[in-house]
């Protein structure tokens, strides 16, 4: 692709030179035309290039002595003018197309890079950024960079070539008049630089403010029931107005900068033109200059009018491009915390034993997990239970390497997770998350999300295991029913069942249920567990739940508190110990007794925990 771009860029540059050449020929030709019309052909031919002169000579030969040389000259000039115009048009077309296609291609490349980067950035990154922000960057900022490349890159060169060559020609024609007609250039350059800096910081702030406004609107619409419930429409409108006015102020500043910029550049140009007219006019009056030459200067200037206007736009484009570019590259330059080692190998599963070896984990110096060791063997179930924030979910997230431990290591069949490829690891480990994201697609495609090549019967099988099959078959569209925004909406329990089916599709060697049955009623959960028995008999299962009925059958139950395993053993062993687990059991399984007999002690217990 890059190679492709280079050639396009090269041809684009070639086209620029051709277009500029034709562009600059036009005023020269017009000047000659004026002189010819005034029958000053001698002067005209000096100024204009030799080609016209020789062409006139040869045509005069053809037409013979009888024809009027001035008329012949005019016809020749007209032909050249036409050719120059067509040539300029074609070259400009080519150049513009090259510019746009390079822009499109770069836009495409950036989009793909951005997409890939987002997919690889780890959980800790995604948890910390607002999704709306990432979407804005991927859409608006990529577009900003693309537009910049497309319009600015080649056009800037074009303008430089055009103005540069124009300057040379114009100065070689007549130094004083040339200087006068170019007097606007330094002014425009100064304005452009000054405005670029102002616009840049403005664009940056504006982009940030727009993100903030998006967030305000998005959350308001998402939480509209809360807004209504608290009758907070006024409050919300105030938040909106604040965010909105901030963008308005910045946008107005920007319009102001742009307006003064464009008009000042315009007037600088016009004043230069006045100078040419006045000084050139005086020269003509004095006879030092003929009208054709003056016309050339004026025609030059009117050809430069458009480029000068475009400089104003380009300045804005530069400012915007550098802002959007820096926002975009701040994401593209991130290094994912979790990535394959260069020599990472695919996971080789021999028996499927997962082991935590003295694992610690934490953020910013504070350990949220401390010295966790356990072993999950095929056919066995490990249950994790504990108060919220105790670190249960973190353990679940360490298994597919959503995060890396800071101390200790985790192995599957003796292979450190950090030495194997993420892909092979995540294929082998199925984590059923608490929150289920549904994609706007059919139920079938959602279930088969992790294995879109799977045959129909596998999708059905997985759905049946998750006790979702009956429900799906009862739907009018069956497995082809669309879910999400345009289709049926699933209840919390159904979503979680779909999530289970989705994970089962991968035929993971190791299944982790991260509190993924909270919204499923106990009876259905029981049925799911029964159905999974033959599936889990040669696989290790980890169940995280706060509902004891979900995990009391586990072979080993770990009670986690403040990142440490404080109790471990089977259900009966733990009950016999009479510790935290037993307290929890009392609390959950026998609510009647709790309320009627232990109610006095409940406050004390909670206060202690």
């Amino acid at each position, binding site marked *: *692709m890059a190679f492709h771009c280079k050639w396009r860029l090269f041809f684009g540059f070639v086209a620029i030179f051709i277009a500029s050449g034709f562009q600059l020929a036009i005023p020269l030709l017009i000047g000659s*035309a*004026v002189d010819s*019309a005034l029958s000053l052909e001698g002067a005209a031919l000096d100024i204009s290039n030799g080609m016209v002169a020789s062409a006139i000579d040869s045509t005069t030969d053809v037409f013979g002595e009888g024809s*009027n040389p001035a008329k012949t000259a005019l*016809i020749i000039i*007209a032909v050249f*003018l*036409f050719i120059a*115009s067509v040539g300029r*048009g074609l070259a*400009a*077309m*080519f150049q*513009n*197309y090259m510019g*746009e296609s390079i822009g*499109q291609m770069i836009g495409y490349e950036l*989009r*793909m890079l951005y997409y890939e980067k*987002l*997919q690889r950035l780890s959980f800790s990154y*995604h948890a910390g950024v607002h999704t709306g922000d990432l979407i804005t960057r*991927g*859409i608006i900022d990529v577009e900003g960079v693309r537009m910049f490349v497309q319009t600015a890159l080649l056009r800037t060169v074009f303008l430089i070539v055009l103005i540069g060559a124009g300057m040379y020609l114009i100065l070689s024609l007549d130094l004083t008049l040339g200087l006068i007609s170019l007097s606007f250039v330094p002014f425009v350059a100064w304005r452009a630089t000054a405005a670029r800096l102002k616009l840049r910081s403005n664009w940056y702030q504006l982009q940030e403010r727009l993100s903030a406004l998006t967030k305000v609107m998005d959350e308001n*619409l*998402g939480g509209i029931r*809360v807004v*209504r419930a608290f*009758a907070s429409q006024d409050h*919300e409108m105030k938040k909106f107005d604040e965010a909105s*006015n901030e963008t*308005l102020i910045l946008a107005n500043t920007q*319009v*102001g900068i742009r307006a003064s910029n464009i*008009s000042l550049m315009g*007037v600088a140009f016009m004043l230069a033109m006045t100078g040419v007219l006045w000084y050139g*006019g005086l020269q*003509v009056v004095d006879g030092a200059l003929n*009208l054709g030459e003056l*016309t050339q200067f004026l*025609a030059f200037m*009117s*050809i430069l009018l458009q480029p000068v206007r475009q400089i104003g736009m380009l300045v804005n484009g530069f400012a915007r491009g550098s802002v959007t570019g820096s926002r975009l590259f701040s994401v593209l330059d991130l290094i994912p915390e979790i990535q394959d080692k260069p020599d990472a190998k695919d996971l080789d599963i021999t028996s499927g034993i997962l082991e935590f070896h003295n694992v610690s984990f934490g953020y910013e110096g504070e350990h949220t997990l401390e010295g966790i060791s356990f072993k999950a063997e095929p056919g066995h179930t490990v249950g994790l239970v504990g108060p*919220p924030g105790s670190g249960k979910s973190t353990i679940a997230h360490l298994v*597919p390497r959503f995060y890396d431990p800071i101390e200790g290591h985790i192995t599957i069949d003796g292979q450190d997770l950090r030495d194997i490829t993420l*892909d092979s690891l995540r294929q082998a480990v199925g984590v059923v*998350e608490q929150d289920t*994201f549904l994609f706007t697609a059919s139920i079938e495609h959602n279930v088969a999300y*992790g294995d*879109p090549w799977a045959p129909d019967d596998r999708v059905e099988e997985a759905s049946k295991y998750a006790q979702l099959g009956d429900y799906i078959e009862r739907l009018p569209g069956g497995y082809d029913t669309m879910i999400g925004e345009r289709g049926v909406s699933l209840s*919390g329990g159904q979503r979680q069942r779909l999530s289970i089916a*989705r*994970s089962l599709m991968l035929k993971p060697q190791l299944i982790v249920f991260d509190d993924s049955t909270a919204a499923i009623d*106990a*009876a*259905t959960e029981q049925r799911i567990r029964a159905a999974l028995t033959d599936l889990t008999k040669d696989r290790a299962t980890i169940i995280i739940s*706060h509902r004891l009925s979900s995990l009391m059958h586990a072979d080993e139950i770990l009670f986690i508190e403040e990142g440490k395993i404080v109790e471990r053993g089977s259900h009966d062993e733990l009950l016999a110990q009479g510790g935290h687990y037993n307290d929890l059991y009392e609390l959950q399984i026998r609510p009647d007794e709790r309320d009627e007999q232990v109610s006095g002690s*409940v406050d004390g217990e*909670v206060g202690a925990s």
Partner: protein
Amino acid sequence: MATRDPLDRSHIIPPKASIRLGPTQDEEVFGEAFSGQVVSRFIKYVSKYKVLLWVAITSVLVFTVSSIAIPLIVRNVYDEALAAGSPDRGKLTTMVIVFLVAVGFNFVANYLQELIVGRVAERILVDMRRAMYDHLQRVSLSFMDKTEIGKLMARLQGDVAALQEFLQTAVFAIGDFVLLIGIIGAMVWLDWRLGLMTLAVVPTLFIIRIIWLPYARRAFLRARVTSSIVSGALAENINGIRAVQGLSREHVNYDLFDIRASDNLKAANRASKFGVMMLPIVDTLTGAAMSIIVIMGGFFVLGGTIEVGVMVAFVLFVQRFFDPIRSLTMHYNVLQRAMASGERIFEVIDVPVDIADKPHALDLDEIDGSISFKDVTFGYLPDQPILKNINFEVKPGETVALVGPTGSGKTSTTALVHRFYDVWEGSVKVGGHDVRDVTQDSLGRHVSMVLQEPFLFSGTIYENILYSKEDATREDVVAAAQAVGAHEFIMKLPGGYDTPLEQRGGNISLGQRQLISFARAIVADTKILVLDEATASIDSYTEMLIQQALNRLMEGRTGMVIAHRLATIRGADRIIVLQDGEIIEMGNHDELMTLGGMYSRLYSMNYASFDDIPDELIQQATQAANGTST
């Protein structure tokens, strides 16, 4: 690297993956070029800035006229001051001064048109967005329930921007049009023969444009549609990133995204081909026009029919001649896009506000906190009542639990108290006043709601608890958090109350979010509290906290709870059992147990929560209850 045809990659699309390459109805980007309705309604928003816009239009006209005047002055300089026979210094100076004046006008007008048009357009963008947003705050929840947020956001952003662009374009289009007319007029006035000959090329351009337009439009349309598909795919992947990574679908998604992005690349390139195609055509015609001027004008000058200045003015005019034509046809696209966007915007603004204050609605000041439902019938769809003839009263300070299977009408009952919807028949009274007779604002000051799924906003924990109660102090917030037992965990967070919450409160647990939403309700301090208890089983620890918090929350308030937990239900002063939109049993726990109906049957099944009871058991209980009652 060899080029590959982006579309020839069908082999990498897995059979069970969705890939959408066509537009959906909502992405229709071009409408009619002109819709009187949209324009006339748009004008209402614009009319606020009438004065400014007239100044802008005047500036555009002054700018245009001065732009036309400049070549004419140059012509005068040539013919009057520099004419070969009698060069005149004085005349030259006068002309240059006139020229300077024209430049001055040109400058001021240019500045004003850019500034005013730009600012008014920004202002209107904000106004339109605000109107839509404000409206969304008031439309019925049933509309919000069935509309995707993403779609509304697209209207609040993209469509509004399209109208902004339209306004800018429209004002400048006036300038372009005047410029075109002015140039034509000036040319014909300078020399009608030369003028007409030059203008002869114009029809060619129009004919070419007419042939070109439908193809180009299709290409532009396709580019826009594919681009919005790419954006949609990106957004979905970002939102579902956990599922994507967890199921290691990255490669498949990358390939699918590549197909969409390549498709977009192809479409965009095609569109730019159509775009740049006009360049050589316009230049060719400009060249032709210039050739005509040089030949015919030159002959006329030689023959003495016209002055050389006229010819120069023609050359200067012709350089600017095609700009307005080109931009006028470009505006056509903007126009079409704006009409489609306008329709979508007004579609939102036109969603009727079902629930509006009566003209002289009462502003409830103090109320006693009683609730009464009298003969209430209500539903969402015509002929499908969800609630049938509901009658009950809640005394001030009483806590009532609503119990019943899914779909029995519990949520609808609570929604009516807050007047989220209006009843079909009967009346709902709060503090003795029909909810339809009081202002919604004041009703909101007396009734607050805690929803089943706690929704938290970005911002700190403090801001979330405070929410819209701006006159509450920090002490109030802390006291509320202490009351619901959230203080301890909040203090353990790195920033305490000032800890910023991640999106939707992602950095705290579900139970903790619940507690925050309780604290929010305490700060709101309303007489009546409606609470939809969470169904998802929360960990037992937080559960305990929540149960206690619930009691604190209800202290001194009238409570209406959609209860799922047995503990909550038993703690209520009264239990209302709903089934199929009707009240089948009412009384306190002991009374209902003695009654031996549905409630006692469900209760005796010994599930920790009514929601744990499988459907079939509920059915059995219902049948059994019906059996005993008949």
